[in-house]
């Protein structure tokens, strides 16, 4: 398979019993793009991300990351789960959560050392959370939680970042801060893939897009495929708000 694709997914179907959540989806993501996965609620966006990462079994299909199976290139992939996927009352600090991003390269049993701690502090600084490094995580706001998750992914020093709704429930300042970091990643040649909800910001934030509604509706450069027609296909009649603003 072609190594030029960051992700090359073929004929992916993910089903719970006989109910398909993702139905025969093909998706090729070139290296170095910033791609949004968009689609209505229940379109299977999060499921697709989890399927790419092998977190849920594929009913059918095959995923290659840089031409290899995911297990072989794990270290090249950074994952940012939905903020609500974890218990923020867990007894730990910001620094400790960010350090978790270094566990992958440490492997089993080995503990983080000075090198990893420095790496974590750098990532925390990058997301503007330095003064909160030793803060207990239950005291963070939603935006701060999302920054912590991003910092954690940065310590993975990955080639591809897969993010599940990184802007959900965050304030405008945080959204701008996150997007500028993501653009920086893209400029240094990394690939960023994010589940996204706000259609208005797609052309500003992303240069590549996949429209999903159980099936893949369209995918490619934003300029070519982010069209009213494709949006209508993906969202059905529920798209009027976008047209109100753009016309």
């Amino acid at each position, binding site marked *: 398979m072609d190594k030029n694709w960051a992700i090359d997914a073929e004929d992916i179907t993910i089903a719970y019993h006989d109910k398909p959540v993702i139905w025969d989806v093909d998706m090729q993501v070139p290296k170095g793009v910033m791609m949004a996965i968009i689609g209505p609620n229940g379109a299977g966006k999060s499921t697709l991300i*989890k399927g790419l990462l092998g977190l849920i079994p594929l009913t059918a299909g095959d995923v290659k990351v840089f031409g290899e199976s995911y297990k072989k290139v794990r270290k090249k992939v950074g994952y940012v789960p939905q903020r609500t996927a974890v218990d923020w009352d867990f007894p730990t600090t910001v620094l400790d959560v960010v350090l978790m991003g270094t566990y992958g390269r440490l492997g089993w049993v080995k503990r983080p050392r000075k090198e990893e701690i420095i790496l974590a502090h750098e990532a925390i600084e990058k997301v503007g959370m330095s003064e909160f490094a030793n803060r207990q995580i239950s005291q963070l706001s939603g935006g701060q939680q999302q920054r912590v998750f991003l910092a954690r992914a940065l310590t993975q020093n990955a080639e591809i970042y897969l993010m599940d709704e990184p802007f959900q429930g965050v304030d405008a300042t945080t959204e701008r801060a996150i997007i500028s970091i993501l653009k920086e990643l893209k400029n240094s040649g990394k690939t960023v893939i994010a589940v996204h909800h706000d259609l208005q910001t797609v052309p500003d934030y992303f240069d590549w897009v996949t429209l999903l509604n159980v099936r893949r509706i369209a995918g490619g450069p934003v300029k070519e495929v982010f069209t009213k027609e494709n949006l209508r296909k993906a969202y059905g009649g529920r798209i009027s708000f976008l047209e109100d603003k753009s016309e």
Partner: protein
Amino acid sequence: MIVELLIIAVLVAVACAIPGVFLVLKKMSLISDAISHSVLLGIVVGFMLTHSLSSPLLFIGAVITGLLTVFLSEVLVKSRLVKEDAAIGLVFPALFSIGVILVSRYTGNVHLDTDAVLLGELIFTPLDRLTFMGRDLGPRMIWVMSIILIINLAVLFLFFKELKLATFDEGLSASLGFSPILIQYILMIDVSITTVGAFDAVGSILVVALMIVPAATAYLLTDNLKTMVILSIIIGIVASLLGIAFSWIIDASAAGGMAVMVGIIFFFTFLFSPSRGIIVLKKRRKNQKIEFAIKMLVVHLLHHSNTKSELEECREQHLLEHINWEPRFAKQVVQKAKKDELVTDREGILILSKTGINMAQESMLR
């Protein structure tokens, strides 16, 4: 004898506290109850095969039934026909009841009786000696629990990072290549071994108290996982020693005394914990409520100061009618605002001070 008894109690308490921390954080406390019951089946089957209570086969049998409990519950949950709590409630009574039938039917004359299973016989454990070539090596239980404690400490030190990651964020754990399922089963094997070991001393019900309560108590006292583990161990030790003393004084079951004591420690922590205790939380919430009310008060006063309606709107009486506060609460708020020098009272009309005006303006900016 007494020293040996206390050593056994402390070993059991410490060994139980360690896996308990992760069970509590994984919200899997109930699984320890399930395992502690269903291991009976493994112990009985092991006994029927070997006719010995000290054979390692009993241990292996118990660990296998412990894991079987976890596995069968998960199979039921995955069928999506049964919820998690119901699945646990279905599996362990089934395994336990088979164990009970086997005990009552086939092991009539041995010391395996249902009372011992449920409550343990801590007092008698020092009587069961381990001998080697005619020499007394001390109570068997001290040896067994020491080995289990070493295993638990080894799991804790080797896999602390993995346990923490899998407990906090299963998704990341899996994506980084640390199988959460494998880690969960390491923990479950540990829980099973500990349960079987502690079984003789404190029985299948109280072992749950020693696993879960110290961890739940420590959770109220700290925001740091390492501290939580250490606190759980300390709480376990203190509770077991005080509990035995207590049971001596009132001449009752030692295991019962330990469980009661750990419960009492939890109760007082629940009330008085400086960070998460119920009393502190109540107080904090009340303060927050009054602080917010003061903000509302100064903003309201700012709106109406120097207007025609000032006379009407800025009276204390008005707060009761329009903002709809309870008279007692309104008084508290106004008093606090006066004490903080945010407002002054001029013939029944509340006037904002300079700090009050600043506060009102800042509040509206947000």
